[in-house]
């Protein structure tokens, strides 16, 4: 019986060891992306070869898509909400996602090109309006006003 418990304990430890090994081995530079603000990137605060994740607003009006080149090119500018004049060029070699025109923001993951543009491997669009349709400037109902009057709602 004791012998079995030792064998079982070893088995358990082997599995736990494998889980932790896989987690730590999985956390390499190839799988992790560092969060970065666009303004920080423009200050040159970057390392080539490292994965970054940038979140910002995108300039939808001036985005361009060229489907005739190989690979295809979607080119747009990304900027921080608090400094709209500092823009970074992002190049994404894939098709334009459906909700691109209505996107309020984007998350791009990828590496910097030597010329300072950002080469995105993943593009995720942030659409607060995606499930919360149409950005009504927070209409306030009667009940809501009543609750505010009572101090139950800000």
């Amino acid at each position, binding site marked *: *019986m004791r012998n*079995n*418990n030792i*064998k*079982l304990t070893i*088995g*358990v430890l082997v*599995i*736990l060891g*494998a*889980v932790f090994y*896989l*987690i730590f081995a*999985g*956390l390499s530079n*190839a*799988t*992790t*992306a*560092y*969060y970065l603000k666009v303004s920080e990137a423009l200050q040159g605060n970057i390392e080539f070869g490292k994965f970054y*994740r940038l*979140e910002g607003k995108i300039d939808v009006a001036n985005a361009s*898509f060229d*489907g*005739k080149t*190989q*690979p*295809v090119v979607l080119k747009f500018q990304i900027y921080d909400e608090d400094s709209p004049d500092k823009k970074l060029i992002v190049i994404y070699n*894939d*098709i*334009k*996602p*459906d*909700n*691109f*025109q*209505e996107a309020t923001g984007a998350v791009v*993951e990828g590496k910097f090109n030597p010329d300072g543009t950002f080469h995105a491997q993943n593009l*995720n*669009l*942030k659409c*607060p*309006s*995606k*499930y*919360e*349709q*149409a950005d*009504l*400037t*927070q*209409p*306030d*109902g*009667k*009940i*809501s006003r009543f*609750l505010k009057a009572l101090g139950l*709602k800000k």
Partner: protein
Amino acid sequence: MAEVGYFSIVLALVLSLYGVAAFVLALRHKSPALLESAKGASLAVAILSTLATSVLLYFLISGEYSIKYVYEYTSNDLPLFYRFSAWWSGNAGSLLLWLILLSWYTVMVAFSRKAKQMAPYASAILLLNSAFFLFVLAFLANPFERVEGWFPGGVVSNGSGMNPMLQNPGMVFHPLTTYLGYVGFAVPFAYGMTALIMRQAGDEWIKVTRRWTITTWLFLSLGNLFGAKWAYMELGWGGYWGWDPVENASFLPWLLASAFLHSVMIQERKNMLKIWNVVLVSLTYILTLFGTFLVRSGVLTSVHAFGNSKLGWYFLAFTLFMLAGSFYLIVDRRQLLSQGRSFEAFLSKESSFLINNLVLVGIAFAIFLGTVFPLISEAVRGVKVSVGAPFFNAVSTPLGLGLFLLMGICPLIAWRKASSHNLRDNFLPSAGLAIITVLFLVITGMRKPYALISFGIAVFTVSTIFREIIRGASVRHRLTGESYPLAWLKLMGRNRRRYGGYLIHLGLILMLVAVTGSHTYNLDLTRSLKMGESLEIGSYKLTYETLDVKVIGNGREAVYADLKVYNRANRRLLGSVEPQKVFYPTSDQPATEVGLRSTWKEDLYVILADWDKQGTATFKVFVNPLVYWLWVGGYVIIFGTIFALWPGRGSQTGARYLRDGAEVIHAQGKETA
């Protein structure tokens, strides 16, 4: 009318709090009258929640656009089907769905005839959960709020419309099944906590909640599957699973619930792993709340999120409250839960179940860590770092394959102790078959190690499951003299829990095959074509014939391309695909409608990405092998679960294996003696 809805919510909130107190006091003072009153309160909460929901549904269907929720999610051109599904398209409505399920579950528990002494506490815990949702609905996300500037008697003639992406059957069933899968875990959680509060060391709570757990597990499986299908058909990126935080949030409780389903069998049969089971059921439920927090807080960027709202933080607070409460109970009552007995053998079903549990929880832990990694790294190192799909794949692939291997070894091992001799006899033929398969695949040109291992394990596991079924049938045939098919049918029918489980395993193996095929041998290509031009991918040749516009009802227009599909080698016409971009009257953004040609071998998946005035169009084309089997596997799982759950003889627990050396041997010979 809106006031009726809102007042129902407020009244239900008051009654739910009263109910919690009344249930607890009724037990303390042993007052049957108070207990009846508390049960009445739980019924009243359910009726009021139903009333509130009915009012909202009436507004959605009749188009009362002065209600903000109705305004935001519906419009005059929306079909009835989606007006109904608008119920759970938004934040407030989906909370109402959660509430109505929870409140009726509470009634079922409160009035349940099983485990009567446990029902009051369990109902109180469930009512406390309802109270939280009612609080949120009453003060933070009121579904009956009017649009701004509305005055009594004012009419709003149209709404802003439902997001096109939600106008898909997948988005009707995915949220519904996922919510059923989330809410249902409240019941086993409540019973588990009740067992601790009442200092009941036995497994009664597990017996009472078995059907709840399995049914809920099925709904959560379906929720994930429908979500994957929706993503595949509607999001147009050629995949069905992206390791997005919100996908992970519904995968985590699924993993833990799967572990729980297995480990309770050990407690039922051997009275072991008691603490572990309580911990698992608590974590499962708490992770469903945590998932809701992730979706609603905006703390992690996700493609699924419900916009940023403060609501998430209330969910976090409630999650932490539940976590602290259950943790306290488990630590305080730990003596109650001490092991009945120890493991008798290293090679036994119970030890293999233990390993299965460790691997499932290990995968869940890794995925949890990866999901919240940005928060952890920011807290620990001050740098926010995220991990993506490569991390999740790197961790879950080997562990998942180990799990599938275990699934194949398990039927070979008896309860208590397996002799190495009978293990070898059972093991070798299946292992041989797997090796032959792998060699065959290598000869036919397959070289990717993970794919080979995965297919090898799939063959091994399927063959041990079939061997087990055939062996059982032939034992029965020998003992009873029934013909083989009859023996087989009776064997399955009399041990539905066991064979239902095997069916679920077979479904999961089909999914493994699908995931392996579609991840390792997928092809994609993006090309611009002039009309009449062709592209070649995999074994296909696609010729772009025309681009045109058509009206497809409800004011929607579709730009579509017609592509003829040929076999690349012999130029035989196979059919055509029609990728579309659909324009909705209420939205500026078109929605992709994938052109799909699905066979059991592979999916040809075509997206119309862009076009110009000359008719030159850009297509993205994927060839995704074996995806078909993902959905088939899902149906097998549904069938297996219903088979196992179907009431009547055959769905009960197997014999307990407690006395040393004198187990009950089933007449069918289903267990190895």
